[in-house]
């Protein structure tokens, strides 16, 4: 794993913005969108870049009806899909939101191939807060949400009941997700803590911009303006006024609280214990203090 800025002249194309769901990925995307527009205000519903991979994109690049294929057939060609997108792009850098864990196909090909990757920004958030936010996002109770983030087989957009516009994204458990990217990504990875984004968003944004090799990286004023333009309260206000197209149908809202420490306040003790039992080692590695089992 590298925490350093990467060589922007290596010819690679993708900058992956990676996180377990409900960890600040959309917030970072909004900040980057504003930064690339010089710190100007943003419309949260504008079709911007850094979107997640869709079925429509799969079909456009492969000329095939995705819903006629089995999951295994789709999974097998995910690396080739990324290569096809890279070949078709006229940009030097393609930003993409990613919720997948870093995974290999059944034949051993890395889905996020190093040769087409500039690197990955990995956003991590205290899993106790993730569990609360994930529950609201997916309309689950806390018990089920904690179970999901501890489940190795968990996927995103993986329902077999309904068709999703996104492709199925294997998540694994929260711990597996973190370690897959930090330890096995075969590319430079910048680790970003959600809690640090809350404390100093402009500084963290500048780190991301530097890592991705964006020309605005050294523009302190633009980073500050972009952080302000995508301030959580503004995103929330826009969602109140106009809605947010990425909100799941069952969720009441997408931009909800945007703060740290909620999990320790609202989760019952036995669920805090479960989270720490499941993820304690990785939490401590990332500086998230364990509390449930010591009280």
């Amino acid at each position, binding site marked *: 794993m590298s925490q350093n800025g990467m060589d922007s002249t290596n010819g690679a194309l993708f900058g992956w913005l990676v996180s377990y769901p409900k960890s600040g990925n959309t917030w970072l995307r909004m900040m980057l969108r504003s930064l690339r527009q010089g710190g100007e205000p943003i419309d949260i519903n504008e079709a911007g870049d850094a979107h997640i991979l869709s079925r429509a994109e799969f079909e456009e690049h492969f*000329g095939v009806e995705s819903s*006629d294929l089995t999951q295994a057939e789709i999974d097998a060609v995910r690396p080739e899909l990324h290569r096809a997108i890279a070949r078709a792009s006229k940009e030097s850098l393609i930003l993409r939101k990613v919720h997948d864990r870093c995974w290999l196909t059944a034949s051993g090909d890395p889905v996020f191939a190093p040769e087409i990757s500039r690197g990955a920004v990995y956003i991590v958030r205290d899993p106790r807060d993730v569990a609360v936010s994930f529950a609201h996002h997916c309309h689950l109770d806390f018990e089920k949400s904690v179970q999901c983030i501890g489940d190795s087989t968990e996927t995103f957009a993986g329902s*077999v009941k309904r068709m999703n516009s996104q492709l199925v994204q294997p998540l694994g458990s929260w711990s597996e997700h973190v370690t897959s990217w930090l330890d096995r990504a075969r590319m430079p990875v910048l680790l970003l803590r959600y809690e640090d984004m809350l404390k100093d968003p402009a500084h963290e944004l500048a780190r991301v911009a530097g890592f991705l090799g964006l020309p605005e990286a050294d523009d302190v004023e633009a980073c500050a303006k972009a952080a302000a333009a995508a301030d959580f309260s503004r995103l929330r206000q826009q969602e109140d006024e106009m*809605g947010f197209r990425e909100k799941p149908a069952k969720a009441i809202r997408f931009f909800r609280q945007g703060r740290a420490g909620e999990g320790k306040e609202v989760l019952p003790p036995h669920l805090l214990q479960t989270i720490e039992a499941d993820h304690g080692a990785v939490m401590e590695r990332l500086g998230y203090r364990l509390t449930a089992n010591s009280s």
Partner: protein
Amino acid sequence: MTSAFHLQDYFFHGRRLRSPFPLPSLPLWPALDTEGRPDITLCFGETPASLANPLWSSPFVQIGRDKGALVNIAAVGRFWLPDNGPVTIQPSQGSEPFEIETILLGTVAGILLHQRSMLPLHASCVVLDGSAIAIGGSSASGKSALAAALVRRGALLLTDDLCVLGASKHSVHAVAGTMHARLWPDVMDRLEIPSELRLPTRPVHPKHAVVLPAAEARAWPLQLLVRLGSSNLASEPVLERQQDLASLFPPDTLVYQRKIGQLFGNAATELCGLTALARHVSRYSLRTTKALGHLEQCADLILNALRGEA
């Protein structure tokens, strides 16, 4: 697969297709017309494993410089579509007839229609009171679900997912395609589709082909084009009539696999078809929520719009 079946002619998006195996999703070619020759013939046989130096290639589809096309779904089989001559199918060992039909009437059909210089919209279509209503949108936008909901309100299915247009000087017609709508379990349950009407599309695949009451297999005057935009910007579905040409943009989500049409040099066909749509067909955008609970409400909005146009 072929032993007990005689050649049968089917109505394939307005073309006469002769098949050596049953294609229950397609209407039969009118029995009165026993003399004519088929426009498209299917046969079983050996296909190329791949095309040398193709014009365009993906893991599943290759388009040749001579306008031949090869579709390869390893678990199902290969489908060879020469520029002229029969469509040759080489099934993979153990593949089921229904999955050959699934690929044939989906991906392969789209390519075949472009190859034959037809204009397929990415749309499902129903007929009500003699008028066709096309519902267009990208994958997972809910075209088939809405078509099935309209059928539940008395419409007849004309085609699912692929809708060929025919244009004359004063009107646009939608042409019959498949009689089955391909639906996911949540929609089938919502519409209370009995299990005996749910036919498999692939082994162990949640999507099923559902038998629905179908319109007569011919071309019907197209009255409405409704383009679906799935989002959660509104808490309720909103149907809006569109007056300007922007209603046909982006064409990439309106024309089925538009890039493949362009590879076959069909820009003029597309331009003629879209121009005719703009001149003769009422166009609406339907912004839906992702909530399935709004399905019936969406169907009612469309039916009200149709009555308003009458």
